[in-house]
């Protein structure tokens, strides 16, 4: 009986494994693969063939690819291969090793350098002009992000940056709104501390919610922003050494430590909880990226929301001499060997051209455009708060592209800066440990 049951299960499994999305479509002339994160949303957008009808990252990118598949006249079919965000590069590397190379893949600009140094990515300088993609239309940050050793290695898709999402109702209660109806922003660390104290005193709530538990990205990005605003070079020119023993590092760490120690940051929040605290009116400011703008806007329109009618967003305020905000970006890269035939290569370039032409649609996600023409367009400026954020396309600051394994470096910095806040690790120890660990990691990199 049990054996029969097992055989039935096995047969059932085999039948299910044979199921799938085997649509009876005519065979495409050219098929290419597109590897990306942003999730899968077939249920809502699988049949949407118009990028302008997409909503959110997943919806827009899905509809964009569907539109390309439906409208291109060259018989090109793009097969999307989704992978989740966290282990994306592990899977990408595994694919490259196994020679199962995607034709086109989305890449963080901060990760691009590692693959370029290993000569895995095709330069695009020669191809872009023929596609009508002018590099002079790239924004400053986008161009920096995809350029290594003077060559362009990817098509920029967006710029995302570190922002203050503000509950203006609470700011009003704290007496921190200006006569122009805009929140008063600090211009120095002392002003920020004074503002946080006033906010706490008047509302009984901490000024900030930001993710400290279960992630290190937020602390790293805030730290990098404060360092960039002091015009400090954290890394050597060749990107192989970090110098944490600079007064500017102490300034940044001291400020973060004081904000946390004085109770101006709601403690023990992870990413979801930090956003929740903000949406529930438990903090005046959540420090997070561009991608939450649409979500917070939708909440602010709900009558029952504590955020109702009281939401705005600005770049992380300038506290030191230089206007700068931590920023990174997504881009599309062509991997060497990903196109087996000249037809596939041409198809991949056509896809890039199509994505470039729909750049404005992607900007609806909250991410900033990578085309000057889009950033300056009336349509983009008419989107909520984009006027406030457009400066980031110039002031966005990232790690220098010469620094290898940037994601590992970000993790190491973020971990120890989180230790500084959560477990009270002394600043001097944080400086020593970050320097030691990051330099060790950088030394291990072969190329």
């Amino acid at each position, binding site marked *: 009986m049990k054996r029969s049951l*097992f055989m039935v*299960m*096995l047969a*059932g*499994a*085999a*039948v*299910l*494994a*044979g*199921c*799938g*999305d085997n649509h009876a479509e005519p065979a495409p002339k050219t098929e290419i693969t597109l590897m990306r*994160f*942003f*999730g*899968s*949303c*077939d*249920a*809502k957008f*699988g049949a949407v063939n118009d990028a302008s009808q997409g909503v*959110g*990252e*997943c919806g827009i990118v899905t509809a964009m690819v569907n539109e390309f598949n439906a409208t291109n006249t060259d018989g090109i079919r793009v097969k999307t*291969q*989704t*992978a*989740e*965000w966290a*282990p994306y590069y*592990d*899977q990408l590397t*595994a*694919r490259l*090793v*196994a*020679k*199962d190379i995607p034709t086109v893949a989305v890449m963080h600009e901060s990760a691009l350098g590692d693959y370029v140094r290993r000569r895995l990515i095709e330069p695009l300088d020669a191809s872009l002009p023929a596609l009508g993609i002018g590099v002079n239309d790239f924004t400053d940050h986008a161009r920096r992000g995809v350029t290594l050793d003077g060559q362009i290695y990817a098509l920029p898709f967006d710029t995302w940056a570190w922002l203050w999402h503000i509950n203006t109702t609470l700011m009003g209660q704290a007496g921190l709104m200006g006569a122009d109806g805009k929140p008063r922003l600090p211009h120095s660390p002392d002003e920020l501390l004074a503002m946080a104290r006033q906010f706490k005193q008047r509302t009984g709530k901490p000024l900030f919610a930001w993710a400290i538990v279960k992630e290190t990205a937020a602390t790293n990005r805030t730290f990098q922003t404060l360092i960039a605003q002091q015009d400090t070079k954290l890394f050597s020119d060749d990107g192989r050494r970090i110098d944490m023993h600079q007064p500017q590092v102490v300034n940044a760490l001291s400020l973060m430590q004081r904000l946390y120690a004085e109770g101006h940051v709601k403690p023990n929040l*992870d*990413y*979801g909880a930090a*956003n*929740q605290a903000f*949406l*529930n009116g438990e903090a005046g400011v959540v420090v997070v990226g561009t*991608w*939450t703008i649409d*979500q917070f806007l*939708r*909440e602010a329109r709900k009558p029952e*929301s504590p955020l109702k009618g009281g939401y705005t967003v600005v770049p992380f305020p300038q506290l030191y001499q230089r206007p700068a905000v931590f920023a990174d970006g997504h881009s599309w890269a062509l991997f060497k060997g990903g196109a087996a035939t000249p037809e596939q290569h041409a198809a991949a370039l056509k896809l890039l051209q199509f994505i470039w032409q729909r750049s404005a649609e992607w900007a609806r996600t909250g991410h900033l455009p990578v085309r000057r023409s889009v950033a300056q367009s009336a349509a983009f400026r008419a989107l909520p708060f984009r006027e406030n954020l457009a400066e980031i396309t110039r002031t966005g600051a990232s790690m220098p592209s010469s620094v290898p394994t940037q994601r590992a470096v970000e993790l190491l910095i973020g971990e120890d800066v989180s230790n500084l806040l959560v477990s009270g690790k002394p600043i001097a120890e944080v400086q020593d440990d970050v320097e030691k660990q990051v330099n060790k990691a950088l030394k291990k990199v072969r190329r």
Partner: protein
Amino acid sequence: MTPMLRKGWFDRAVMAALVLLAALWMLPLLWVLALSFKPNELLMVRTDVFLAPPYTLANYADILQTSAVFRWLGNSALVAALQTLGVLVLSSLAGYGFARCEFPGRRWLFPLVLFGLAVPSQSVFIPLHRLFSDWGLQNTYAGLALPGLAAPFGVFLMTQYFKAVPIDLEEAAMLDNASRFKTFFKVVLPLTLPAQATLGIFTFLACWNDYLWPLVIATKPEMYTLTRGLASTQTNFAQSEGLGFLMAQAVFAGAPVLMIYLFFQKHLVTAVAGTGRS
């Protein structure tokens, strides 16, 4: 009088404490279940909701409308079944060999197998992936199932089990002219069914729940297993914007395992209690 009432106050207190602890242990699972029926928009703002409305089946509908989800389910079942079958066959043969057969190198080979228990699977990940991809097994069922066949725990369990079977039974069979293999297959193997069930269930569950190996060896969506496939559908900020969907995924992926547990709970409990013997 029921057995429970006949017991003393201490036993009852222990039982009450165990029930309480079990309820506490169950709480996160029940929370996951409850959140899976809540709209994502609500969960962006509140996650302390439990039984109160609103409810929705939208998260489950979204999973079922993902075009490849049944294929992933089938892949998981197929790979887990193949791996379970392979582990049972190999571990039984190896266990019998170590328990009963004399062959050159047995004395050092068995400790070497046991040493495998001390090697974390992650430490051999890179060479293993390299090997399998060089053999062209990327995105194949063989690539998904074969690494799990090296099961030191299975060999150890079966060796110990075969050692406990009285040798007289085998000697009697051999006196009746049964070959070594026939003795193994017809006489000894049926006696090890409880151990086989234990090993089979653990192997199946481990394979079903595996995420890391499918992450690197299955890179085409049509070859994803369920855990891998469901994870790939998560948006970048699922823990905030798609929490209900995330919880529904956990329930959906766990449901088949729960059913297996319900069918085979007697063997599982026996195995965990360390008395895997009839």
